[in-house]
């Protein structure tokens, strides 16, 4: 478990991070969401120790983070970085060796990982000859090759086609399932929504919301419900405490003013005929995001 408390950072007069605090749990994927310049990259670089903080603390399992701990982190920087003229496999092997693996171990791991990421055919090609998407995969391999306990990935999905997104997402989920704590930032809110277990939203250098994805959604849902009936749902319009958003024959989306109203509508629906579906409509991440950063 990696924990940030009261982390603050200023560049001159400009405060880019203000009292930032959140937790990344082991075995979970945490999405890190925020607009441009919100402080995501700065936060990540501070966690990695490549940038100093003005105040606050970063702890791993309760103890202050040491350089030794950080050596077991996997990092994917915002602006991709690999040696352009070095061969893909060689490069990943080099990084694994820097992290302490023997040449033989490093080669085995790097080969397996690159194959898993779909670069098995390109091992001997230099990085600069790869397409951007493939360079990105190589970059992800660079972050993962030493089996880090903590993974910090800055925009790992940007520039990937939908198939590659799935490949990378699968790899990250495997790592989390094996117990790694994974933090990734992304502008693609749909991907974050689909993938992450936990969510941290940052805006203007402060954390606006943090918690489990489902918890946040529940917290932000405004009793919006979806109803699908066998018959016509027109009666909803006259129901007290109900605000119909959409209505089309037996299909309706509506907001209820209280839990009692919700229960009353459900009873009425069942009396009126077959109920195919009656479910709360969770707000999308994009909606939550817009709401919290205001």
């Amino acid at each position, binding site marked *: 478990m990696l924990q940030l408390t009261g982390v603050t950072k200023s560049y001159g007069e400009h405060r880019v991070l203000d009292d930032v605090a959140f937790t990344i749990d082991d075995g979970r994927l945490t999405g890190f969401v925020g607009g441009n310049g919100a402080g995501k990259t700065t936060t990540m*670089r501070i966690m*990695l*120790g*490549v*940038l100093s903080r003005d105040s606050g603390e970063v702890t791993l399992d309760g103890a202050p983070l040491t*350089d*030794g701990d*950080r*050596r077991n*982190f996997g*990092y994917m*920087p*915002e*602006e*991709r*970085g*690999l*040696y*352009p*003229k*070095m061969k893909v496999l060689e490069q990943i092997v*080099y*990084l694994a*060796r*820097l*992290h*302490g*693996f023997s040449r033989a171990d490093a080669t085995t791991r790097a080969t397996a990982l690159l194959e898993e990421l779909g670069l098995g055919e390109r091992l001997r090609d230099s990085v600069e000859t790869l397409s951007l998407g493939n360079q990105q995969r190589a970059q992800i391999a*660079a*972050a993962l090759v*030493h*089996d880090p306990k903590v993974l910090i990935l800055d925009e790992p999905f940007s520039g990937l086609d939908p198939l590659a997104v799935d490949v990378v997402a699968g790899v990250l989920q495997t790592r989390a399932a094996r117990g790694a704590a994974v933090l990734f930032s992304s502008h693609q809110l749909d991907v974050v929504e689909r993938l992450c277990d936990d969510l941290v939203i940052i805006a203007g250098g402060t954390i606006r919301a943090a918690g489990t994805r489902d918890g946040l959604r529940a917290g932000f849902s405004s009793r919006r419900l979806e109803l699908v009936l066998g018959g016509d749902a027109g009666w909803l319009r006259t129901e007290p405490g109900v605000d119909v958003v959409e209505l089309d024959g037996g299909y309706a989306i509506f907001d209820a003013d209280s839990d009692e109203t919700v229960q009353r509508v459900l009873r009425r629906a069942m009396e009126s005929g077959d109920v195919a579906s009656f479910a709360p409509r969770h707000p999308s991440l994009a909606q939550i995001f817009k709401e919290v950063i205001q």
Partner: protein
Amino acid sequence: MNTRSFTQSVWLVTEREVGSKLRSKAFLISTGLLFALALIGVIWGGVAADSDSRTPVAVRPGTAAVVAQLDDVIETTEVASVAEARDLVSSGDVDAALVPGGAEPFGYTLIAEDSVPTTLLAMLSVSPEVELLTTDAVDEQLRYFVALFFGLVFFVAALTFGTTIASSVVEEKQTRVVELLISAISTRALLAGKVLGNTILAMGQILGLSAIAVIGLAVTDQGELLDGIGAPLAWFAVFFLFGFILLAALYAAAGAMVSRQEDIGATTTPLTLLVMAPYFLVIFFNDNPVVMAVLSYVPFSAPVGMPVRIFVDEAQWWEPLLSLVILLATCVAAIVVSAKIYQNSILRMGARVKLADALRT
């Protein structure tokens, strides 16, 4: 998985620096060219020394004794008559003829084509004792060429590898590889590995050139020159080692201060001047003992200045040692300062990092 020790990390970086350079075609070709040029130079020197550069002079039996002492500079051709001697001079087979007759105290006459052969006249007026003195000292031209050799080799190697290290630091910074690297190893290990790697490459080139010079001189029968150049060459190698580490550390720091290859000139130009200065100073002032003495102690010019002074026998035995101590001390100071600049600048993207900021603790 074990965490790497400092030395292991340094060595891994060194290995990559050397490996990637050895696989670069540009590097291999330029090194090959450099070696080929050195080889041609040595062989050409040998051919030039072999070919008879003595002045051809026609003599009569009565005058041969006059130039007998000058055997190493004058090639004599004995002629049957004064008329034949005149013919040889006119046809250009000999530069001059020495025939009996003429005013005392000489008792002979020098015949030349169309101008007074001043060199020959000077030779003839040299007394044997003076001649001994002149063969003992290193001649002007040789001194100049040795100074040129050391100066050029230092200049080329330091500039080549200094620029290499600076641009490789910028490459890592520009491509952000450095962020990955220093999340695995410390900045100090990274810097040390880069400096060490390039030092090995530069030393390899220097040793290769020295080997070509030594073997070439031996094979082409220029043994005497070899006797004189052996010790200076060895000293040059030692001085070059530390002189290069000094420059490499500074070049790495200079590279770290900028974020793009295009800006690299802004911070490396002062260093380039520092590398060029000893080359030109030593070449212009190689016959000025005072300037040379100063140059042989200034850390940046000592690798060229001191070997030249040792070659011309102007340095006392302790002088290279003292100069080396000064160089070592400067080297340590440069490493400390460079490590600070490097650490403070390597992650700062964008505008050039100001020196004052880079040195801040």
